[in-house]
């Protein structure tokens, strides 16, 4: 049987049969736009451009700072990436962070002030003037970290079950979780922070494993030492999580099934994919990532905070989408999210340098996400080319 030349089926609908630019330039542009590394190139190019105007951006201390901002955001964004791949969304990650932070504080705190905490429903039972449950215990940090991740996974389990068993839309389920758990965290602590966490915990967010000593520098008035973080505990946590996540997505059956569900849930179900189990596990993973991120953020800020993650949702979803993960499901990679987080962090860095007001910064964030969506659509058009037989 004569075969139809396959090109015909994917021919674009346009009236032009030749591209509008010289072919080589056109191909180069296409290659660039379609490349996985597009966002990375864009981030670096943008950063270098802005640093022409603000040279302090390239100073080692600034770069080291930006690194420390990347790791916690990456940790939680990896969880969101998983959820987006299955065409879901997890709006509750911020509140999961809040609850897990409170849980961590309740376990770890070494001392608390009565006048501040006495209104909390946990006062007298789990929280006393001596601190939290495992106050002073050498194993407290390990227990706290495990429990924070577990609580995150539990909330994810609740989300996932509501979505799969009761067929409720993810947007609504996670929105309700967001509202409920934020309020619950505030209720448990009556808005107070649970302070006085042990140093061994704080090191997870603030401590260096490898630092770079740049010696003494004389800045305008004062001699000061410069000690820069290079490899920190939070870096190790984030990178380890990234490696595990990448492995799951690219090499395991579970990962492939995730992509199938995100592309076409019905077809996946008919093909024997255990959709309910996969979806629930993915939401648990997202919650666990939020719990892990709570470890890093709480350690950074030195307290169990019921308001942790309040303003983070835009950053999380923005960074993930900019990286290239599609909001419609079926597409996403850990590497892309890393690039998206890098881009977002560098963008915020430059905006802070420009001393824009908070309102202007939010406006820019919003337009950048819009730009990312446009790029996504354009890339899609390049790839699919047009109508199909």
């Amino acid at each position, binding site marked *: 049987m004569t075969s139809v030349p396959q090109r015909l089926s994917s021919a674009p609908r346009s009236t032009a049969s030749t591209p509008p630019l010289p072919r080589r330039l056109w191909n180069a542009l296409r290659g660039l736009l379609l490349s996985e590394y597009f966002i990375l190139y864009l981030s670096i190019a943008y950063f270098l451009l802005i640093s022409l105007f603000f040279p302090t951006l390239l100073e080692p201390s600034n770069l080291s700072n930006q690194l420390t901002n990347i790791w916690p955001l990456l940790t939680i964004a990896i969880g969101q990436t998983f959820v987006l791949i299955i065409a879901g969304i997890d709006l509750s990650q911020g509140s999961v962070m809040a609850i897990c932070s409170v849980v961590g504080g309740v376990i770890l705190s070494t001392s608390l002030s009565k006048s501040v905490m006495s209104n909390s429903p946990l006062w007298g039972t789990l929280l006393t003037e001596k601190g939290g449950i495992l106050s002073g215990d050498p194993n407290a940090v390990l227990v706290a970290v495990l429990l924070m991740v577990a609580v995150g996974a539990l909330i994810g389990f609740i989300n996932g079950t509501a979505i799969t068993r009761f067929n409720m839309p993810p947007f609504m389920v996670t929105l309700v979780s967001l509202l409920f758990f934020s309020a619950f965290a505030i209720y448990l602590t009556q808005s107070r922070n649970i302070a006085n966490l042990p140093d061994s915990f704080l090191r997870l967010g603030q401590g260096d494993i490898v630092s770079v000593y740049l010696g003494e520098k004389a800045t305008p008035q004062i001699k000061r030492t410069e000690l820069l973080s290079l490899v920190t505990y939070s870096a190790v946590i984030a990178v380890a999580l990234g490696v595990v996540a990448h492995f799951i997505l690219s090499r*395991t*059956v579970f990962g*492939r099934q995730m992509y199938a569900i995100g592309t*076409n849930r*019905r077809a996946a179900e*008919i093909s024997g994919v255990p959709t309910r189990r996969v979806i629930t596990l993915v939401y648990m993973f997202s919650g666990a990532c939020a719990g892990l991120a709570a470890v890093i953020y709480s350690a950074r800020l030195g307290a169990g905070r019921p308001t942790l993650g309040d303003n983070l949702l835009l950053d999380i979803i923005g960074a993930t989408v900019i990286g290239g993960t599609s909001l419609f499901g079926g597409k996403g990679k850990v590497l892309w999210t890393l690039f998206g987080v890098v881009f977002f962090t560098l963008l915020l860095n430059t905006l802070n340098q420009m001393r824009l007001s908070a309102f202007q910064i939010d406006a820019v964030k919003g337009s950048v996400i819009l730009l990312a969506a446009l790029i996504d659509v354009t890339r899609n058009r390049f790839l699919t080319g047009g109508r199909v037989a």
Partner: protein
Amino acid sequence: MTALLTLQSISKAFFGVYAVRDVTLNVPAGRILGLIGQNGAGKSTLMNLIGGVLAPDAGSMTFDGKPYVPRTPSDAVSAGIAFIHQELNLFTNLSIAENIFLGAFPQRRGFPFVGIDRAAMRRQSEALLEAVDLKVKPESPVEQLAPGERQLVEIAKALQLDARLIIFDEPTTSLTTRETRKLVEIMQRLRERGTTLIYISHILNDVLSLADEIAVMRDGELIAHAPRVEFDASRMISLMVGYSLDQLFPPRTSTPTQTPLLTLKGISQPGIVKDIGLTVNAGEVVGLFGLMGSGRTELARIIFGLDSFASGEIVIGGEVLRHTSVRESIRNRIAFVTENRREEGLLMTSAIAENIGLVSLPRYALPGVQVVDQPRLERAVGQAANQLQIKSGNIERQAAKALSGGNQQKVVIAKWLLSEPSLFIMDEPTRGIDVGAKYEIYSIINTLAAEGNGVLFISSEIEELMGMCDRIVVMSQGEIYGEFTRADFDKEAILRTAFREQATQKAGDHAADPA
């Protein structure tokens, strides 16, 4: 015979590949021209050229004797050409009248922009609906209409435009027999009025009964154009595929055994199916026929475990099951090729290889962490693709949506083949597929049976079932109403069995249709 529309050496290429090559065609005025050809033969591109969606690379057209160079679809509309696409272009949230007059609302006299003259709109709509014999009020929202009725609204639209040429693209695929008959009547009436019609269809018998002239396209070229009398089904097929097909159906090489693979006993689900008893043996192809709404697909879904059943049992490989699930079914080596491959069978944007491997992933993974054994999987997938002769680019990279309908269906079958099932449930496996690909799918089904598997073949085309099956089971309104062995195959008898209970239904119901 004057030609209303002439095409002179029209060509159109995309990236160097010709979709339409040097086509010269005269569309006779006041006649019905049937246009046939396989998918990819260039029919749609040719229609898009006529309709102003595309511009030809070479050649010229005339309409009504004057040069015709449409730059946009509205040029075609102004010239008097109307298109009735396969996917209807109606707005379901608007009323019939609004759809008909969209873009051409009758204005109230006096001022411009004073508003739509709804009374005039209603009057004119009523007249148009009368012309197409659609007894529905013009204010009714389109979403309440059945596919056949929506088709008639599209025709009313075309009449409103006072089209001289109406092009029908696969108009009967989602119509019932009765609606098809009505459509045919309207088309004949249009022809009597002097309207010229081009009728594109895969259903060769319909074309043969309706068209005055038939044109055949193949690989972008116009192969034949002659009055209808010079054609018969087998000539049409040979012209379309380029070689002669002695028969539509490949010969069976095996006989069914007596070993039951699947037995249904008393399966009931209130409102869906009642007391179903059915057996499929190894090496057997069992056809399941029925009208739309008879419950065939629902039964298939119950067998496969997608839906539950209230009472009865399913016996698979000796094991009696009171309830089952998709995963159980797959474990019991059942495969289900659904009737809509785009929505339920394929991951359209994923690579072909990804699709083929989907069901069998766990089998190609290391135990424990379930890491995929990529090389072994790739080999198996490649083998399956070759076995079924799927024509595509690199299967690891090309998305399923880039394939033709026939190849897409092969991908779905390959996906199931990989899981090594023994029972195949196939629901309308050749719907929307051209003749050449249909034959290939039939061959695949025969091979499956020859290898000792069982096939439950659900279809609405009696000829297809009669050509392929050992037995045909007829369903009607959720129950099994009859069974025919090969020796007793008789088209009328089968149809009558399917229609049995319809006489008591009220007139106006689509299904109520004496044979």
